[in-house]
């Protein structure tokens, strides 16, 4: 069953088109992440779904009801904001119950719901405190609780973890995932953090310039990016690109001849100008590289040890190349090592259209 349906949504601020005839169909219980660089329209889309922005054209349906003209509170949504947006003069309990009091719900029902939400989020000891007396993580929990008590079908998250420090962010990320696992609500989550997107999402929508570039599962987006932008946006450290040309069964870049091997083309293979992208973690080194379809000896220029793994920089065919190696690998700058990869794990993009080949 469809939970949220966005149909031909267009939003313009004057002459500026922020969202351009956008269509998404979100099934019930799905965790959808809207991912993109700042200014791509992801938060705007969320605000349109929430009803906080009037749309220029198109429709929004939630639970098979056309809510395009409905007030935010009538749409059956709960929303969590980046800055928590807790009402500073109210206690935690007051914050949680504000929406229910506005809906003139009976007192005992309010109390029951607040108690349940507090239990789920483990914020019972904080109920009488003011937001100023809470830590960042606690505040965000209360903000989630405020969406939780409303007992809605759709949760909207607008970069909820961006204001937290790295450790807390990782903790709360797992908690949000657990929450989704237990509640099985539809969740739409806006973020610019690809780790959050990859770990949380059932499906990711990558946005750029008000247009969804690719809407697919994290695995598919990571392994088979639909265009060069998506390939470059997803993955950290960033994917390596080579500019060159497909000639027969080889990709030629500078003096480099890479055999295409088992690469699965979208259509028929054509001789075109193309870019080849290969992720740093798909490049092997040492003995492992020897048997791969492509291998070559390179000189390591810079080494960035990160504990769990080590990032080595070199140059191949005039382009900087990042190689992700095991954290225990003993490499030093200036040493020569053998690297290799299987082009089938990489991606080819048309140089002109930047679409996947």
């Amino acid at each position, binding site marked *: 069953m469809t939970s949220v349906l966005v149909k031909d949504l267009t939003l313009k601020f004057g002459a500026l088109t922020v969202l351009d005839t956008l269509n998404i169909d979100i099934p019930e219980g799905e965790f959808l992440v809207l991912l993109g660089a700042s200014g791509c329209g992801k938060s705007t889309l969320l605000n349109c779904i929430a009803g906080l922005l009037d749309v220029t054209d198109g429709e929004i349906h939630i639970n098979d009801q056309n809510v395009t003209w409905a007030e*935010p509170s009538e749409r059956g*949504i709960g929303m969590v*904001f980046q800055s928590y947006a807790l009402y500073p*003069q109210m206690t935690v309990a007051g914050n949680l119950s*504000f929406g229910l009091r*506005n809906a003139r719900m009976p007192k005992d029902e309010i109390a029951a719901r607040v108690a349940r939400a507090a239990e789920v989020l483990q914020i019972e000891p904080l109920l009488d405190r003011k937001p100023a007396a809470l830590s960042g993580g606690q505040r965000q929990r209360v903000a989630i609780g405020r969406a939780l008590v409303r007992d809605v079908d759709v949760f909207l998250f*607008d970069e909820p973890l961006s204001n937290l420090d790295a450790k807390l962010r990782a903790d709360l990320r797992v908690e949000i995932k657990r929450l989704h696992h237990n509640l099985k609500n539809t969740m739409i989550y806006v973020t610019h953090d690809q780790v959050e997107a990859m770990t949380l999402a059932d499906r990711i929508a990558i946005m750029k310039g008000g247009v969804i570039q690719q809407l697919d599962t994290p695995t598919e987006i990571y392994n088979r990016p639909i265009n060069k932008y998506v390939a470059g946006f997803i993955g950290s450290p960033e994917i390596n690109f080579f500019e060159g040309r497909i000639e027969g069964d080889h990709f030629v870049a500078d003096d480099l001849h890479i055999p295409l091997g088992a690469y699965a083309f979208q259509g028929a293979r054509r001789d075109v100008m193309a870019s080849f992208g290969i992720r740093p973690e798909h490049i092997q080194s040492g003995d492992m590289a020897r048997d791969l379809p492509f291998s070559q000896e390179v000189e390591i220029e810079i080494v960035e040890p990160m504990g769990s793994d080590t990032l080595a920089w070199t140059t191949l065919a005039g382009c900087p190349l990042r190689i992700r190696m095991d954290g225990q690998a003993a490499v030093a700058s200036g040493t020569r090592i053998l690297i290799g990869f299987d082009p089938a794990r990489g991606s080819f993009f048309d140089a002109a259209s930047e679409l996947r080949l």
Partner: protein
Amino acid sequence: MVDAAHPRGPKPRRRLSRGNIMLYGTLIVVAMYYALPLYVMIVTSLKGMPEIRMGNVFSPPVEITFQPWVKAWSEACTGINCDGLSRGFWNSVQILIPSVFLSIIIASINGYALANWRFKGADVFFTILILGAFIPYQVMLYPIVIILREMGLYGSLWGLVLVHTVFGMPILTLLFRNYFSAIPEELFKAARVDGAGFWGIYFRIMLPMSLPIFVVAMILQVTGIWNDFLFGVIYTRPEIYPMTVQLNNIVNSVQGVKEYNVNMAATLLTGLVPLTIYFVSGKLFVRGIAAGAVKG
């Protein structure tokens, strides 16, 4: 052992450095410059007329008398009324309270609507409103006389209240709009998702967060309206003249002996209200700002 030349721990400070002497010297001189006239007023108001005629302006009173204060408050004559400044005081209070309340309530709602509920033409509306702050009062005096006359409010207390409310609008709206604009927009969005409407958000979210700006607006309006002379003298009748107008009439009366002690006492009495407001709410004001500075 730590020798003096080896820097370690807190940096030693010299109390009587040349900079400090200059700084505090200047401050003391400036403070005296401002405090001296006040001192002269207070001592003069506590002297009898014979003592004043001796001419020692700076000397403290030999014989302290509160008679000038009593006279200024309840006996001094202006025109046909001889009940002192007390009449003007109560007139001013009756003008002040509704003016302050009305202007602050309306301006805060204006500012809230302009900051959070952007309607079509909001910018034009705001620009026109702000332009009002730059138009000299003198230009408007006569047109307002006509407007008040047509409304049947000319010469009445409520006419003056209306004038004060209208003239407070540009600067107060600007003040409130800017304050509400600085409140995170997400708070407003969260309240909308929680089902609060225009008034719900205003009364239950914005108002409780805005005590500091209400105090600032109150200080501005109380001092401004209390000290107003021009509107008071133009738009009211002698029976309902505000305190400032009455003070002027007492001090500037050309008949009889100039009673400096009564004049000083009357002036001090008139200035007492804004002074009290500063002393009382200044503290509240600082506390309000400090509370608002903590993110929450």
